[in-house]
C-alpha cells in the first residue's frame, strides 16, 4: 500500500515539478510570483485538444503544433501583460499576473464552455502490473518527461550561451545589458520557455484529468508551493519540491485524513520555510 502511494505521489509530484519549473524560470527572469502559471498548463492542454481531437491531427504532429501554439501565446501575453510592467514594483507585477490569469481563464470558458472535454489516453489505459503494484503508463511518461525536461533545462541554463545570458539578465539587468545581452529578448525567451513548460505539463495531464477552463488553478497553486519548497532559484529544487509535495499529499490523504490533504501539504511547506527560509535547495542551481 505504501509503495503504491509513493508511486502515485511521484506521478502527481512530477506534474507539480513541471509547473514549478515555470515558476522558477519566471522568478529567475522576471523576479515575479506569477499567478497565471497554472493557466499556461490549461492553454497547452486546449491546444493539444484542438489539434488532436477537433482537427483530428495525429498525436505525433499535434504535439509539436501545440507546443508551437503555446510558445506563440506566451509571446503575445508577454507583450500585453508583462512587458509594460518590467520596471514596475514587484507587487504591481504580481497583481498583473492575477489579472492576466482571471482574463485567460474566463476567455477560454467563454470560448469553450465550462464543460470538461475528454482526452483519449495517449499511452494506453491499462495499468502495468509488477507483483501487486499498479503503474499507469501515463504516470510513467509524466515522471519521465518531467525529469527529462528538468535536466534539459538545467543543461540549457548552465551550458549554453543563451542559457547563461538568461540567468545573467535575471540576476542583474543593467550589467547584463552592459555586457551586450539583449535583456528584453532574453526575458521574452524565458517567458516563452516557461509558458511552453507549463503547456507541456497541461498536455501530459490532459488524458488523466480532462481539459476544462479551470483545470489550471489548483495545480498551479501546488506548482507554486513546490517551487518555493524547493528554493525558488533552483531548477532541480523545483522537481525535488514537486516530488516531496506530491508524495506528502498522497501519504497525508492516505494515512491521515483525505479532507485535510491539501492543508497538510501546505503545513509541511510552511514548516520547511520556517527552518530553511530560502527553500530546501537554497541558492544552488
Amino acid at each position, binding site marked *: *500500500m505504501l509503495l*503504491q*502511494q509513493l508511486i*502515485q505521489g511521484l*506521478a*502527481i509530484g512530477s506534474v507539480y515539478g513541471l509547473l514549478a519549473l515555470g515558476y522558477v524560470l519566471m522568478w529567475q527572469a522576471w523576479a515575479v510570483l506569477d499567478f497565471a502559471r497554472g493557466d499556461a498548463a490549461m492553454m497547452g492542454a486546449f491546444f493539444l485538444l*484542438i489539434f488532436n481531437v*477537433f482537427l483530428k491531427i495525429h498525436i505525433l504532429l499535434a504535439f509539436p503544433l501545440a507546443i508551437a501554439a503555446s510558445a506563440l501565446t506566451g509571446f503575445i501575453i508577454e507583450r500585453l501583460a508583462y512587458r509594460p510592467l518590467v520596471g514596475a514594483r514587484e507587487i504591481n507585477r504580481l497583481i498583473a499576473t492575477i489579472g492576466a490569469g482571471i482574463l485567460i481563464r*474566463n476567455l477560454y*470558458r467563454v*470560448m*469553450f*464552455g*465550462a*464543460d*470538461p472535454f*475528454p482526452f483519449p489516453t495517449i499511452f494506453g*489505459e491499462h*495499468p502495468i502490473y509488477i507483483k501487486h503494484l*499498479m503503474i*499507469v503508463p501515463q504516470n510513467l511518461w509524466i515522471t519521465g518527461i518531467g525529469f527529462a525536461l528538468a535536466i534539459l533545462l538545467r543543461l540549457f541554463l548552465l551550458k549554453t550561451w543563451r542559457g547563461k545570458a538568461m540567468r545573467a539578465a535575471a540576476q542583474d539587468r543593467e550589467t547584463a545589458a552592459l555586457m551586450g545581452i539583449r535583456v528584453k529578448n532574453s526575458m521574452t525567451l524565458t517567458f516563452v520557455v516557461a509558458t511552453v513548460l507549463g503547456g507541456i505539463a497541461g498536455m501530459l*495531464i490532459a488524458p*488523466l*484529468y*480532462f481539459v*476544462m*477552463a*479551470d*483545470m489550471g*488553478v*489548483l*495545480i498551479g497553486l501546488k506548482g507554486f508551493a513546490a517551487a518555493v519548497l524547493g528554493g525558488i532559484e533552483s531548477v532541480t529544487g523545483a522537481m525535488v519540491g514537486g516530488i516531496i509535495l506530491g508524495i506528502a*499529499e*498522497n*501519504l*497525508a*490523504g*492516505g494515512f491521515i*485524513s*483525505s*479532507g485535510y*490533504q*491539501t492543508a497538510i501539504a501546505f503545513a509541511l511547506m510552511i514548516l520547511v520555510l520556517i527552518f530553511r527560509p530560502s527553500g530546501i535547495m537554497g541558492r544552488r542551481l
Partner: protein
Amino acid sequence: MLHRKRLMGVVAFLILGLCLSSVTYGAPPIKIGIVAPLSGGAAMVGDTQVKGIALAIKQINAQGGIHGRQVVYYAEDDEQIPAKSVNAVNKLVYQQKVDAVIGTVNSSCTLANMEITKRAGVPQITPISSNPKITRLGNPWIFRLQASDDQQAEAIVNYAVNVLKLKKMAIMYQSDDYGTGGKDVIVRRLKELGLEPVAVEAFNPDAKDMSAQILKIKNAGADGLFMWTMYAQGALIARQSRQLGLKVPLMGGGGLTNPKLVELAGEAAYGLLNTQTFFPDPEGASPEAKAFIEAYKKEYGILPDSNAAMSYDSMMILAEAMKKAGPALNKKEVRDNIAATKNYRGVTGVITIDKYGDANRDILIIRVKEGGGYEVVWPKH
C-alpha cells in the same frame, strides 16, 4: 476552432435569447429571474440550468405565453459565492423586478439568497440545491424541485443493501454542501440497517488526483463505493478506480447523470448506478421526458442531463401556477398555486409539492448500460 456541435449550441442559445426579448405583444412581458453559477467550478451546472429554463420559456411563448403575455428571462451569475449570490438576486428582484426567481445551484448560495425573495415576497424555485435545510427553515417562498439528499441517499443505500446484498461499502464525497449532505444520510441509513461504512473519504471539489482515497478504500476491502459528487469528478473516480484495481459497484446521486459521463469515463462508467428522477435515455422514458429530450437535442445539439430536466420542470410548474393565478399575477397567489401542485406529470416524474415545498416523487435507480445509454433497474415493473 470551435467544436462544431458546440458552436451550433451557442448560436441557437443566443438567437433564443434575442428573439424572446424582442417579441412583445403590447402587454409587458412576464419576467423570470435566473440566478446560477455561470463562471468558476460549477459553471457547467449553471449553464445547463439556464438552458433548461430557456427551452421551457421558448415552448411557453410558442403557445401564446401566459395570459397572452410573452415570457422573458434575466440570467445573473453568482460565481458560486454566497455574497455574490445575494447581489444577483437583489438585482433581479429590485432592479429588474422579476415576477419569480429560479435558482441557484450551490445550496450555500441558495441559503444566502432565499432571504431576499422571502422578504420581498417573490416565489423562488431552486431546481438543483439539495441541502435538506433549505425547505426546513419555515420560509414559505422557497420550493425545491431536486429530490433532496435524504430521498436520494436512502434510495441508493436501500438498493445496495437489499438488492445487491453489499456488506462493506465505502463512501467518497465532495467536501462541499452537496457531498457532505449525501454522506451524512448514507452513514445514518447504513447504521439504521446495522452496517458501518468501511471507509469515508472526502476530496476537494476541484481535486484531480483521487489515488490516495481510492487506495485507502481498496485496502479496507470495500465491496461497493458510494460517490456523492458531480459527473465530472465521478468520471475521474471511475477511471482512477479502474486503473488502481478497485473493481466494485459504483453508486451515487442524481449529480452523476449526464450524457458526458460515459464520454469522459469510457468503459469505467459501465454499470454505474445512481438515483434519478429523470430518465435520460429516449427509449423507455416517459412521454414527457422523451419529448423534452428531443426538443433539448434539437435546440442545443446535446443530450440533456437531470439538472436541465429539473430546471425545465421548475419553469413549467411556475408557468402552471401563473396561469391559474389570473392576469394580475399576484405573487402570493402564484406561491399558493405552486404549493398546491398535485400529480403534475413533469419530465422528472409525477410531482406533488409537500408542505415544506419539496417535490415528492418516486425515485428511480438507473444503470449505465455497457456501450452507453441508461436502463432502469429499480423499481422493477
